């Protein structure tokens, strides 16, 4: 377990998350992709804290902030899914194209 190996695992998680975000149609699945990508970010931040900071606690605070981003993303995301579903009867990205042009 070195900083490079953990960062590589984080890169893999981030890549899988990106793949999921781009390939899934359903909003809920897209959000799962985002969660997975943020998961990789948190792992990378944790690894950098562990191996390169010498135990500086502010490194962990960065991970806490990433967790906050994840929580806000989930909550606001689901609220938007509910709103869009209610207003447009859409639960996939193909269902809304109001931003075209």
């Amino acid at each position, binding site marked *: 377990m070195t900083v490079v190996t953990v960062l*590589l695992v984080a890169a893999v998680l981030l890549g899988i998350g990106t793949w999921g975000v781009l390939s899934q149609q359903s909003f809920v699945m897209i959000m799962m992709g985002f969660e997975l990508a943020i998961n990789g970010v948190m792992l990378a931040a944790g690894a950098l804290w562990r191996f390169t900071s010498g135990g500086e606690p502010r490194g962990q605070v960065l991970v806490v902030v990433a967790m906050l981003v994840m929580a806000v993303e989930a909550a606001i995301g689901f609220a938007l899914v509910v709103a869009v579903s209610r207003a447009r009867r859409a639960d996939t990205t193909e269902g809304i194209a109001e931003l075209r042009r």
Partner: protein
Amino acid sequence: MIAWSLPLVPMVAGLAMAATGGRVPEGRRRRVVGATGVAVMFVTLVLAGGAVVVESSGSHDVGGGLALHVAAGGLPGWAALLVSGVATAVVAWAAAHEDVDGLGSLLGLLVAFVGAMLLLVVADDLVTLVVGWELVGIASWALIGHRWRDPSAPAAAAHAYNATRFGGLGIVLAAGATFAATGTVAFDAIRLLDGAALGVVAAGILLAAASKSALVPFSPWLFSAMAGPTAVSALLHSSTMVAAGAYALVRLGPALEPVGWFGPVAIAVGLVTALAGGVVALLQGHAKKLLAASTSAQYGLMVVAVGAGYPVVAFLHLAAHALLKAHLFLSAGVAREAVGSHDLARMRLGNQLRSTAWLAAVAALALAASPPLGAAWTKEEVLAAAAHDAVWIGLAVAVAGGLSAAYATRYHLLAFGGRRHDGPSPRPAPLRRPTGVEVAAMAALGMGTVALSVLWVPSVHEAVVAGLDGELPTPAAWELPTSLALVALGAYVVWSRDRSGRLGHVPAVGRARALADWLGLPTLTRHVVVTPTLALAHALAQVDDRVVDAGVRGVARTATRVSDLLGRRVEWSVDRVVAAMAGGVSRLADVFSRDGERAVDAVVAGVARVVERGGRDVRRLQTGFVHHQYVVVAVGVVVVLAAAILGR
């Protein structure tokens, strides 16, 4: 003593075999000639072993202030051992495999060919190098044209001979420059040169090596060389002929390093060859031509290593490649005899020829540079050497490695893969099965490939490199994972195409066909070199006919006319000149006022059109779909990261 006997024993014995082999009755010829050939090669192998252990050198005064020098021991000794070892296996295989008709001359010439290559290997001055170089070329001409009753074979032999001969002029040039500057032609004298003379030597040797090692733009001659029997191809591609170019660079490269452009040019030529050869090998449908293109690509990698300043790495890659490529060609010969054609689409002999398929798998894995085989280690070292020069060169070498994994997989799946479910079934039995001697020869080469795996052990490769007076590049952390990932990716792409049944399809027409034939390089050569040369010759003949002859007549006529002109009134001509100038100026003004305005208008309108088109294209991005915008964002992030890394 050993140094002289190394080339002379096989040369003399080979010529004797070629002269007398045809008189042995056909029934006993295979046994008698084959046993003689293998015995000669074995003696040579023992001599080469001696050359590794005992340092020896010799010289022969040829008069006129010139002497031929040879030296064995160290790098030349190991090279001689490699050449004679591979050649022993190939000669044994050829004795068992090739047509009994003409077998005597074929084996004799093969043995003599090895002798010529050994002379080139032990050469210690440029003239001896030229002698060995030309002897190798002549022997290869005779061997490629071995089936001379087929009208295409002599033409192919002539193509190969002319292409390599042209490059050979480079070494003559280098020898001349060295002799002119120092009064001697020894290899050591090159180190004394500087300035323009050293530049000439470097250019000559690079040209010669590029032609012999089939680098771009000389690569197509290797395809012509495929007209020869399989054993010839196996020897030509592994440890002789093609190896001569890379070997000369390994020997002389360190002395040429003071020339500033030598490294970058060698790297550029090598890289282009490695990448282009990989693409050609991926498109070829001819079993031997696929392997030929891969040979060019691998030699390209070696030249990259020399250009980066690590000749010993190039030599180790040469050794690993010689063992595996001879093996692959022998397997291709077996497959050809089994189906009666070189067409990869008709092979897939995995179920019929199991032992050959398994043996060939070892060599294909080595060509794909998969650990723990030794060829993988040497490729990683080439990558490290290239990355030592610049990161992007290392990345390009890694990409070439991915390509080699892809074409190695492609070759093995098409030639020795299992039968596909949608293929014609049941398959006919193979027309001919390999004999025990052929399998043993291939197994010996395979064992050599496997034995090289010890190069991965740090103490072993450090000892080897120290023994060859070289040094190793220090690898960076990203290199091994990147290169292994690309190797896995290349093999996986080909494998998945095979699974979906799209691999057997060989492009027969159109652009892909042209690409498979060295990216259209032969056509280009025909148009750019051959046709203009002929046209120039024609033109010169016409010039001789018309201009020179006409000139004599014309001089007389002109003299008469000039005297006429002088007789007329001079004022009249001055008036004419002034009037003509006035007319010309006014016409020029017209042109500017009309066409100049139009040109400016066109530029403005063109800019407007481009901007309008750009605007429309940008608007097409705004589909309103979230997932399209995510793609743009993700690609942008990757681009920014790449810029941050590469721009460091």
